[in-house]
């Protein structure tokens, strides 16, 4: 058993820009289900609370917040920022920052191009791919 004090409750994001939390759109509320593909070419901040199956591609900028309780099964989620508090099965790719909160449960492949922040308590099974090139002065 892990004797460390485990923060099971959600904590504040450290890496994920706090301003996004107030401006994001709840696309999928609790107990809603969605099956399909989502795409956007604009800078959009999306929050998922329900059950989602499919792809999410935010081509330009954008952020995806997978809230606590959300269950996402995906081929690929790609966005600038990804903040995981829920459960993800599949591949996630953050072009800027990837944050995995204490309640995050990820099975699959994680890729990040600049920063990764994993809180204690996050459960990750799978592959983590670091950025292959050194990007400097990039935000």
């Amino acid at each position: 058993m892990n004797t460390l004090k485990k923060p099971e409750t959600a904590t504040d994001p450290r890496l994920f820009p706090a301003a996004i939390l107030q401006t994001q759109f709840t696309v999928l509320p609790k107990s809603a289900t969605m099956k399909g593909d989502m795409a956007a070419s604009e800078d959009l901040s999306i929050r998922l609370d329900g059950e989602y199956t499919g792809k999410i591609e935010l081509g330009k900028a954008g952020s995806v917040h997978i809230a606590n309780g959300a269950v996402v099964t995906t081929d690929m989620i790609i966005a600038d920022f990804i903040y995981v508090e829920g459960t993800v099965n599949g591949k996630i790719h953050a072009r800027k920052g990837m944050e995995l909160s204490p309640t995050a449960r990820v099975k699959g492949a994680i890729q990040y191009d600049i920063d990764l922040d994993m809180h204690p308590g996050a459960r990750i099974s799978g592959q983590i791919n670091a950025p292959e090139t050194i990007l400097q002065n990039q935000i």
Partner: protein
Amino acid sequence: MTSTNFTGQGTSNMEVPEPRIPGILMSSPTTTIRPTVPAKAIDSLAQPAVAATPTPRALPDTLRFPQKVSEPRTSQVQTAEIGSNQTCVLPKGLTFTGEAHYPCDVRIDGVVDGKITAEPDRTITVESDGKFKGSIKATNVRIEGSADGDITATGGLASFGSKSVCKGHITYGRLKIAEGADVEASMKKLAA
């Protein structure tokens, strides 16, 4: 004789451990006493080491995404509980293809291709920026933008705004079409 010898050895052996145990006990106080003096030294060594670790741990500075301290960092601003009264939005710029089922009111500002359903007594709205193709099924349906396909307002109001463009099939309980609405659809009224 042998037994007495054994007992004699045993007692002698027993006598030996007895002093050993106090010896251990004595040694442990000495060790406890001893650390008191070195403990300070260890603490004095440890404290700077502890103090030294936070200084490189000034993570907020090293993070490449500086955040304003004045801003509340709580995620509680937008509560995790999406109340039944709240509306969920498919924002402008978002394209969704597939099926969705909502327990709340839905507002479509983006582009949706597929099937959207909602729980009873909920309203699905296609806003003026929104484009919809496929089938909508909800108690109330309001179209302000463009809709193409099956629109089913089960027992409720199907409403078309003055700038709406609609094609397909409409099933309604009550109907409202504003002046200027471009509605070209087959219609069926549900029995009240």
